[in-house]
Structures are given as structure tokens and as C-alpha cells.
């Protein structure tokens, strides 16, 4: 039972990114980067399944440039067995990454693939579903619990207004929501040890997959700010404003 997890390198979620003066993109030079938060949940879940004796190997894969080594080292320090970097000079978009992961799946033959439900830079939320479609695999997105019994994964998903539980025949694709688990902290000695582990690198161009960008980024801007509001000093003043100026009948 092998599990493949995808690990994306993104700007740390606490950082407010700035737009470059020419509006061509965001300026992430020197900004703190890290593992996409939902991918940490994916890694954690795979490790727990291994610790429960339900999986035997956890492999992490990341798509990008050599700088992505750091997020793979983080995954190794958390406890994954192996790490693969699929290297591409070009910025990879969702569809391209989905096609590239598919080739890694064909090579590694995992029984389960766990991705994050969405990346916090592109906010796309597409990859897991795209990959499942390309492989014609069962899919369960936004997972808040995973239960493995033999060749079936029972997954509870967070959906608008409640939850839904599905049973998937393996191999299958699952995307992790934040409530799936609480990712473990990485201890410094583990990080030191992870530095020594090898990371296999594959050049994306050798995989025979068309990975040209399909979406052109024309312009990046800060969204229009909400108009500056006012401070009120009491509940009475608040109600007076809402009733008088906003015409709300309270």
C-alpha cells in the first residue's frame, strides 16, 4: 500500500504579498515560502495511515524549480520515505501539473493519492479533481476524515451546509481539508537528517507531456479597498447610524 502526496511551495499564509509596480505579477522576492497548508494535512494523513500499519510507503512529489527542495525536505522531516522533484523552468499551471502528476502516478503506481484541496497562491482548487479525471479514478475532495479498510477508502467530505460520506475503491484521489488532522511539528534533528536524504529529480521536459501555460496573466493589481469607515463610541451611536444613514430598520 503506497501513498503519493503532492507538496506545493507557496508564500507563507501570514504574509501579505505586494504587487510589482508595473502590475505584471506579485513581488515574492525574498518572501518567506513554505508548504501549502492543505498539503501539510495531506502529508500528515499519509503518515498516520502508515503509522496505523495501513500503508507501507509514503512518497512526496513537488513540481517547480530546484528551490522546491525546501518543501520536500520539510516533507521528509515530517516522515515521508522518498521525495521526487519534477523540475520545470516554466511556471506550471494546474492542467499541466495534473498531467505531470499523472505520469508520476503511472510510474509509482500508488494505491492512494492525497493532495491539498487548494493552493493558497492560485486559490484554484482544481488539481485533485483534474488528476482523478485524467486517471478515471474515484475522487473525494475536501476530506475531513479518511478511513482505510482493505481496498476501500471511506471519506467524509465538508460540503456547503453539512458533510457527505463516500466509499471509494482504490486506487483513488483524495484532497485534504484543514480539519482532516493537525499536522505535526517538525523537530530540528529531523530537519537536519532530512537534509542528507536524496531527492530524485526528474526534468519535466523528459516526460513527454505538453505543459505550456493555457492562461495568460495580463495584469495584477490590489483589489479596490473598502471605503474607510468610522468609529462609533457606543451601541446607541451605532444604532443611530445604521438607522439614519443606512436606512436599516432595526
Amino acid at each position, binding site marked *: 500500500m503506497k501513498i503519493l502526496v503532492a507538496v506545493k511551495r507557496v508564500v507563507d499564509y501570514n504574509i501579505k504579498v505586494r504587487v510589482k509596480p508595473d502590475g505584471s505579477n506579485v513581488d515574492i522576492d525574498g518572501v518567506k515560502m513554505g508548504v501549502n497548508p492543505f498539503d501539510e494535512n495531506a502529508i500528515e494523513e499519509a503518515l498516520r495511515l502508515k503509522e496505523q500499519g495501513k500503508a507501507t510507503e509514503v512518497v512526496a512529489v513537488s513540481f517547480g524549480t530546484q528551490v522546491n527542495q525546501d518543501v520536500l525536505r520539510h516533507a521528509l522531516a515530517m516522515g515521508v520515505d522518498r521525495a521526487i522533484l519534477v523540475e520545470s523552468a516554466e511556471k506550471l499551471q494546474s492542467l499541466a501539473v495534473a498531467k505531470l502528476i499523472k505520469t508520476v502516478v503511472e510510474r509509482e503506481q500508488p494505491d492512494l493519492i492525497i493532495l491539498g484541496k487548494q493552493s493558497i497562491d492560485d486559490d484554484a482548487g482544481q488539481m485533485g479533481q*483534474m488528476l482523478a479525471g485524467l486517471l478515471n479514478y474515484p475522487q473525494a475532495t475536501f476530506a475531513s476524515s479518511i478511513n482505510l479498510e482493505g481496498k476501500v477508502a471511506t471519506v467524509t467530505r465538508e460540503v456547503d451546509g453539512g458533510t457527505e460520506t463516500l466509499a471509494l475503491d482504490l486506487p483513488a484521489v483524495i484532497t485534504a481539508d484543514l480539519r482532516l488532522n493537525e499536522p505535526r511539528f517538525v523537530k530540528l534533528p529531523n530537519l537536519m537528517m532530512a537534509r542528507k536524504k536524496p531527492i530524485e529529480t526528474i526534468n519535466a521536459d523528459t516526460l513527454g507531456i505538453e505543459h505550456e501555460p493555457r492562461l495568460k496573466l495580463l495584469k495584477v493589481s490590489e483589489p479596490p479597498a473598502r471605503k474607510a*469607515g468610522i468609529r462609533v463610541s457606543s451601541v446607541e451611536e451605532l444604532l443611530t447610524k445604521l438607522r439614519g444613514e443606512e436606512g436599516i430598520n432595526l
Partner: protein
Amino acid sequence: MRTLIIAEHNGKLLNPAVQKAVTAAQFWQAPIDLLVAGGNDAIIQAAASINGISRVLHANAAHLAHPLAEDVANLILSIASDYQVILAAHSSFSRNILPRVSALLDVAMISDALAIQENNTYIRSGFTGSIHNVIQSTDHVQVLTVHSSRFAAASLGNNAEVINIDAPAPFTKTRWVSETHNLSDRPALSSAKIVVSGGRSLGSAEKFEEVLAPLATKLGAALGATRAAVDAGYAPNDIQVGQTGVVVAPELYIAVGVSGAVQHTYGMKDSKIVVAINQDPDAPIFQIADYGLVSDLFEAIPALTAAIKQPLQ
């Protein structure tokens, strides 16, 4: 060429966001078909009554009673060659299905478009709403979800033709097991006119209920919560507002003891009027609030509740 909208429903009612998707779809000025997978007569009638659409395509089959992404995607793919644009209102339903469709059509997908412009160009947000990207698709088919609160609801009164279509064979490798709904007498969070949201500062599930519920009841409001409040067990997860929860855009949003993290404001900054009550004058929520009250919520909220005249209709 035509435009296809995937109509979301819960087995009983059509989701009102479908009317917003129709307005978005009108941008292409092509005939619009609404696809309903499963569903009852009331849903089909509601779909056919939306002005601006040309036809309702209804696929009914036992396996569509609880539609799986795999089955709805296969259904869409079975008719996709007639369409240049395939879209839906952004929700956990549509974002589960449409990326699967787009990959199998070999086109990129545009998630949660805020605006649609000429030449397959869209505005969408990135970095949790902190930036806006203008992007242009180079693909021959457009697959997208739209941010409902940015589009007006299409009016009702139509009597569009309903056509029954065949559903492809079921995808048997995935099986629906069960679902839970958090039942509440309050209005649905995503369509409520007023939302009262509470944060971690409420301190317990009991206090969350005791302090916020009377205010919400008097205002006829839906209750919302931050992730911190949900994770602490003060509120159920389906009322979480934000990046990983529900996106709301009510007439009035009252944030109570909410710090205003971008992951939260992503889900409420399209609200018409925002009121923030927080004891920390520097809380980021005040930067986006129209009216800010620096106060202890345990004093301010009971006082506000008492001062509101009558329950709203």
C-alpha cells in the same frame, strides 16, 4: 454554439445561485441551457422559470439521486461538444465537478471568476483575495465557476422547454454512503440578508449561543463563525465564513470578536455594510468595517440586542 450551466440543487430545491450564473452566462450572448442532474419536478419547474435561458436539460436516473462528481462529469462530457462555455456558480458542488470536466476536455479552468470581459478574459482573486489577476484563456472551450455575489440574479417568469436526456452508465468505483445537514431555523448563511459572526473570543459553545443567538433571532439573521471558533468547537463547521468556508455578501455583516484575518475577510468583504465589535482598537477587522465599536462584546452584544426594537420580518 451554446452555453451550458450546471444547475445545483439539494434534491428538493434549486439553489438560488443558479439565477446568478444565468446572468454571468448572458455575457456570451449565446443560447443558454441549464443542465439538471437528478432532482424533482419542483426543481425542473424552477429551472425552466428563469428568464434568459433557452432550455432545461434533465437527466434522471437512480444513480443521480445523490449525484457524484464522477457521474455528473461524465454526463456533462456526454453533451459537451455542443458548448463553447460551461459554467456554474462557485460552490462545493461545482468545484468538485468542473475541474474533472475541464481536464477531460483538455482545457484550463477558471475558478471563482469575479468578472467576465471580452476575449475570454476574466478577473479572479489570488492569495486569499489580497490581489486581483486579469487572466486570458487561450483554450477553445471556457470552463469556469463564477463568484455569485458579483452577479445579479436573473429574474423569473420564463417557461423554457424541458428536454430529457440520457445519463451515461454509473461510475461504480465510488459509492455514496451518507450525508449530514446541519438543520437550523435560521436563514441559509449564503443567502441571508444579515449575518452575525462570532470568533474565538466567545470562549465556549454555550457563550456563543447565549450571546449571539438572541441577536441573530431578533435580526432574523444567519449565524456565522471564524475558523478559530469552529476549531474550538464553539460552532458547527458549516457556518465557517472564509477561504475554507462559506463566502457571504449580506446587506449587513456584524463581526463580533473577530480579528479580521485575510482568510476570514475573504468570505465577507463583499458585504454591503460591515459592523465590527472588538475590544482591540488595532484589530485588522476595523480596516474593512464601515462602523467599528471598540468594546467588550459581552457588554456590547446584550446591549445591542436589547436596543433593537422589534424582530425584523
